[in-house]
């Protein structure tokens, strides 16, 4: 069951622009921060659903690096809801305002899309072949280091609608 806080947020966001992108409830009861992280993640990566099992280690890694990470997720999600911010312009808006949350969307999106949490010497890779950028092109490409196929299989035309 969603927590009251999360239910409130979901309700509010569902009423706003971002309705089409929102995931359903997956987080453990009482963990509003993790739930906000998942909702925010779905918005940023353009999916109606992100896998909470894949999200959990990302969330835990973020939290280990910065204890206020859950609250930042809650705050950003609340802003998105309250101001009906579009993912397409979100970063531009936050950058223009020099928002203290401006770094968060890129951090969260990177975690899902490349499996990387943190930056510089603190960067950790928690997913590779299951990262969403690999999944998004998985019908055509294999992640580097994984075999494409038998010798010469790459010589044929790729049938794709891209």
């Amino acid at each position, binding site marked *: 069951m969603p927590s009251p806080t999360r239910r409130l947020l979901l309700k509010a966001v569902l009423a706003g622009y971002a309705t089409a*992108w929102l995931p359903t409830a997956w987080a453990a009861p009482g963990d509003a921060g993790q739930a906000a992280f998942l909702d925010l993640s779905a*918005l*940023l*990566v*353009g999916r109606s659903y992100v896998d909470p099992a894949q999200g959990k280690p990302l969330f835990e890694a973020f939290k280990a690096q910065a204890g206020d990470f859950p609250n930042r997720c809650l705050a950003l999600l609340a802003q998105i809801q309250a101001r009906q911010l*579009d*993912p*397409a312009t*979100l*970063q*531009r808006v936050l*950058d223009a305002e020099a928002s203290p949350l401006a770094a968060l*969307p*890129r951090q969260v*999106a*990177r975690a899902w*899309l*490349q499996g*990387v949490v*943190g*930056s*510089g*010497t603190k*960067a*950790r*890779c928690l997913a*590779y*072949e299951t990262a969403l*950028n*690999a999944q*998004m*092109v998985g019908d*055509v*490409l*294999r*992640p*580097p*280091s*994984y*075999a*494409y*196929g*038998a*010798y*010469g*299989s*790459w*010589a*044929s*035309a*790729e049938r*794709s609608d*891209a």
Partner: protein
Amino acid sequence: MPDAEVVVIGSGICGALAARRLALAGADVLVLEAGGPIERGQVVAAFRDSPRKSDWLAPYPYHPWAPHPLYLPEENNYLVQAGPDPWPVQYLRGVGGTSWHWAAQAWRLLPSDLRLASLYGVGVDWPLSYEELDPWYQEAEELMGVAGAEDTGSPRSQPFPMAPVAEPWAMRRIRERLAPLYAVTANTAARNSRSYGGRPACCGNNSCQPICPIDAQYHGGLAIRSALDAGARLQSHAVVHRLEADAGGRIRAAHYLTPDGQPRQVSGQVFIVAANGVESPKLLLMSGLANRSGQVGRNLMDHLSTALTFEADEPLWLGRGPQSPSAINSRRDGEFRREHAAYRLDFTNISRVDSVTNDLLEKGVYGPAFEQQLRRRVAHEMGVRNVLEVLPDPANRIVLSGRTDALGLPTPQVHYRIDDYVRRGAQAAQQDFALIAERMGGQRLRYSAAGKFSANHHITGTLAMGDDPARSVCDRYGRAHDHDNLYLCGTAVMPTSGTMNATLTAVALALRSAEQIRPMPAARA
């Protein structure tokens, strides 16, 4: 009794294959390596776990007692940059050396590359001819398992060991659309197009750099293993910091430090320095040897590149097959070399997924637009770069810096200036870039930053060979002019760089040096 008949310093592909040949010829060979072991499976796992997939040094072990230059996530400042231009070269110190993470490009030079001064009035001539190199190229190609096409401009008296690796669809389309304006040919690579040398054919892992997970491409790790199989011995964790000469100028011992700083030494009858184009001159400078000419560390060359990335008007999906399959060779030679650098035009087949993801995240592209743009760009983006020849210039050099490493040894310092010859070559290549983009229906063209060049890590010239002891470090066999039992192996002995990756030429020269040291009995040849 000396500790070994031949002491080889450096276990990279050149030192290892020289050691192998000498061991097969019956010599007692000891290889000293500063770094520790490198294991393929661990590197593959480290690559998959790396937060920086395009940083090809990241998956490799770093040995604090034998540092190499690191740039990410933070610079370690091992190689001191004295400028005026930066030269952020990469190499590895570890068993097997830098060719663990090479692209396996195993090109021969052109005959004209060895006669630049005579033909075009620039650079220098080599002390040997291409024809003298041909059999050594062949031996190297057979050892390394080289696959290539016949139409590269480099003559050969025997066929390649293997046919070219199957052409990726993207490269086929580029070849078809650029014809007849440009001839796009298969790159010559030490990559298996069939089972060869007990290793499988390529299966398109597209991680040739930093690591081929199945050993379909040859590397120094395989080379040193073959040397050990032939009977050579290996001492890793041995940081050689001084060669000692006797009163007659013959080298008698190599002094090294263990990782905890304990001094050791080995004696030998013949010494081979094969520690790469930075570390080898550094060792000679630390030893104060082989430098009567004053040329040790000078004439540093590396191929330089500028690049164009754009979106073709058809989906190509780079990333299917090996990383660097095709090139245009028509700019490698001509009268224009009197005026500007020759170059090769190289097409990448590296998957765009990671780089496009980085770019979209940098731009703040979120929501459904991310996947749409990722797929469009990954399908359509292609890249071409030039690989520019650099001329020898004594002012471009490696010296000892004022800094020291963990063992208290001086770190190298580089003085590097990119000259107008290279810049004019890059300018000429811009016209090719534009034509290629036009033929491919290119949109959203992105040229590399004006005046900026990327390094290719082909470190040549710093121990250049020549006939004149006053102007070169070693002779045509790699033997130091000043010490008759000291040989120098590796890309550093090349007097000019040409336009092609240097490894195959360096291996060919190392095999030739080995034959000079101890000829292979006819029965084992």
